[in-house]
């Protein structure tokens, strides 16, 4: 039963990924502008455009184009970026993605490692003392931070830490060989911004889920059994709140990989989201498709992991009758 549930989720994830690949392909084909013309720019003549179209496979039927693309993607070949093709120098997309993926993963992991423990802690603290001044200030602060758009948070932090105090750089300039404190200081502004944005959601979800569990009869029973408060929260309540909390964490991590365009732009951080925006501006369709696939795959993988975690936290599925 457990394995069937997990396999079922896995199958659904694969199907979703496939559907998403079709949607991405249709979507990028709907974007206006002819790639060949953009590449050739001023030098475009009807003949040279047609020749380049043929070279890029753009004269084939869209379905055929999709199959060729899908087969290549499955074999790990994301295609060749069209930028610079006019000059005859196509860069393989895999090579372009490499450093960007590193940057994005680095930021995501650091933000996750900082935000998740902090938010679980604050969420639990709020849930342990509902209605107190502490709980109300946490609730108030998180609600405000969720309502404020990300560029405002980023700009405000720049004003405080870079402009007024002058402690941190307002722009991330990565040479590539930074380590330890230097790296942390370089990345501090985007990390701070993202931790604030991500934590608010996780805190609120943790508080709400744990509070909901805390009002259940088995928690009252634990109180009447004389179980200490800490143990009630950590052993009795948290186990039953795992599902929703893991899901909100997964959604936020996925957002960190693909959704932080504004934050990357403000700090000119060379991450994946920024790369995709650049690709759209250049009408570099293979690169757009590759980025979109990475973002969607990240979402699907993280949600899959979250689903598995909630299945595993449910004893009914783990230990069938």
């Amino acid at each position, binding site marked *: 039963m457990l394995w069937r549930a997990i396999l079922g989720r896995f199958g659904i994830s694969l199907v979703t990924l496939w559907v998403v690949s079709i949607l991405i392909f249709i979507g990028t084909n709907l974007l206006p502008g002819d790639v060949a013309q953009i590449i050739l720019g001023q030098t475009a003549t009807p003949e040279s455009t047609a020749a380049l179209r043929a070279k890029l496979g753009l004269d084939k039927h869209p379905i055929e184009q999709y199959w060729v693309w899908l087969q290549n993607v499955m074999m790990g070949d994301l295609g060749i970026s069209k930028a610079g093709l006019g000059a005859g120098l196509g860069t393989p997309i895999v090579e372009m993605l490499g450093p960007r993926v590193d940057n994005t993963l680095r930021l995501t992991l650091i933000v996750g490692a900082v935000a998740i423990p902090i938010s679980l802690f604050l969420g639990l603290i709020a849930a342990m003392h509902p209605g107190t001044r502490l709980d109300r200030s946490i609730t108030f602060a998180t609600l405000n931070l969720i309502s404020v758009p990300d560029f405002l948070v980023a700009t405000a932090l720049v004003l405080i830490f870079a402009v007024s105090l002058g402690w941190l750089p307002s722009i991330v300039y990565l040479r590539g060989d930074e380590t330890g404190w230097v790296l942390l200081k370089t990345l501090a502004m985007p990390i701070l911004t993202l931790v604030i944005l991500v934590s608010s959601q996780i805190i609120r979800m943790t508080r709400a889920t744990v509070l909901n569990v805390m009002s259940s*009869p*088995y928690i009252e029973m634990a*109180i009447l*059994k*004389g*179980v200490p408060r800490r143990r009630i929260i950590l052993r009795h309540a948290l186990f039953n709140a795992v599902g929703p909390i893991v899901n909100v964490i997964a959604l936020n991590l996925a957002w960190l990989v693909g959704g932080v365009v504004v934050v990357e732009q403000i700090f000119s951080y060379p991450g994946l989201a920024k790369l995709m925006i650049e690709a759209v501006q250049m009408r570099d369709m293979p690169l757009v498709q590759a980025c979109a696939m990475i973002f969607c795959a990240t979402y699907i993988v993280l949600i899959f992991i979250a689903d598995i975690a909630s299945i595993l936290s449910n004893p009914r599925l783990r*230990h069938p009758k």
Partner: protein
Amino acid sequence: MSDLLEVDNLRISARNDDDELTPIVKGVSFTVGRGEVVALIGESGSGKTTIALSSLGYTKPGLEFTGGEVRLEGEDVISMDSDQLRGLRGHRVAYLAQSAAATFNPALTIGEQVTETCVLHGILTQEEADARAETLYRALELPDPDKLGKRYPHQVSGGQLQRLMAATALCGKPDLLVLDEPTTALDVTTQIEVLKAFKSVIKQEGAAAIYVTHDLSVVAQIADHIVVLYAGEIQEYDTAEQVVEKPSHDYTRRLMHAVRPPPAAGQGDETTGEHRREAPALEVKDLLAGYGRIQSGLPAIPVLRDVNVAIERGHSVGIIGESGCGKSTLARVMAGLLPAAEGQVLLDGEELKPALEQRKREELQKIQFVFQMADTALNPRQRIDNILGRPLEFYLGLKGNEKRRRIGELLDMVELPQEFAGRYPEELSGGQKQRINLARALAASPEVLLCDEVISALDSIVGANVIELLKRLRKQTGVSFVFISHDLSTVASFADEIVVLYAGRVVEKGVTDKVLSPPYHPYTRLLISSVPELRVGWLEETMQTQEAQAGIDRVVTLKDKGCPFFDRCPVAIEDTCDQETPPVRTLAGNHAIECHRSEAEFAH
């Protein structure tokens, strides 16, 4: 030597949003001696649970202590701080809640939850506690005592969980047990087993107990003293024998009166033939139904098999059986909520489509469902006149004055005042809500009313009044009733005919008088003998009987072949009953029993 627990002029109040205090418990005093069982009895709202919880120094959220003392061995628990209380709870005073299914944490193993308290309080080490738990499982006659601790709550039955709760409470060797309606949610056959286990374990451990319930028959079996409560005040406080045999207070007598007599022949409500027509109002034939995907005609989880039931016009048919036997499933198939895999549902002799969506509006109108929980069946955001007005509009096309007049009539029918039309469900008591629930079904002018455990959630006095109302409505309207209950006494007092379901099969059916008098199907016999009687000493006598010895608390299991009751049957025939589907024996007076034993053999 002083008493173990002295409750002295206890006062508890509820604080509302405007910071006003409403008294809930108004100066209650009683004592519990060592090794003694004191029962707190009363309806919901009488404050019985609130008083019982005060012995743990606990009040439900929103309530607070406003006066008096609760002394455990001379020490007031109300004035203890939270560290002292934590030491008290589970160690000296242990609590057993009404619904074990809700009070066991689904994510932790049974063993951890049973032993948690005494290990946390440092009374025993984990190994000692595990050993003690195993001893308790044996004493409580639980299956597989050596492996039980490693299982999760969803892997054992409701009756077993209730006994495991007792093991949890007893593991820390408390001086005082607080039992809050511990058998109310159980089937009679399970209840008797749990009661027996509680009684012997309390005696063995020498613990004292406060036993909270609304059921006088249960109290009579287990209590030494009885405290009768009404609206937070003591009405009567005396020994169990005195209260049960010579109740002195008027309210106690009313409570006694509301206890339905044990089921026996002669209680059924005979229906005159005036509403009769040729075809039954509703009939199901050769029904096969269940849950899950249907593959080659068989649902993944089959629940009902070979079910044939006919409800004559104006008659009421009681459907009885333990939880999991398929009672509610049968009602859902009749209503079309669950399409049958095989078989027919006939209304006035005409076949109905299996699924609700395919049925015509007139057909839907003729079969109405009254759900068990009025609380969840009535939309809290709708006023009563909207709740009753909707079916009037939808089925009968009534509008304006006509609709309003009809709503008034419906409120009259269920004996509620006219001004209730403007109220919301939350402003009504449980019994009143159930009346609205009934009125809503009647608003459609149905021919058949499916009542699924409609009084199970109500107190005895309120429930008895609803039964009276149902009887009157039946005479007045000529509506046929399908009355589903796990409580044989309730069914016996209301139904013309009884259908006994066991594991999805009809094991016996016939006129009430025939079903409730010999010859019985062995299962019917077990059901009847398990209903507690309102007298001291009944439990001990019953435990000696053959049925009780056959091991009555078993989970109902569905079987592909043979008689499903085989495991629990005291007169089972080896190699016959477990192999072959039993034949239906039709006895005099259209009385049918599905059993391998012959009529002569039933008569014992």
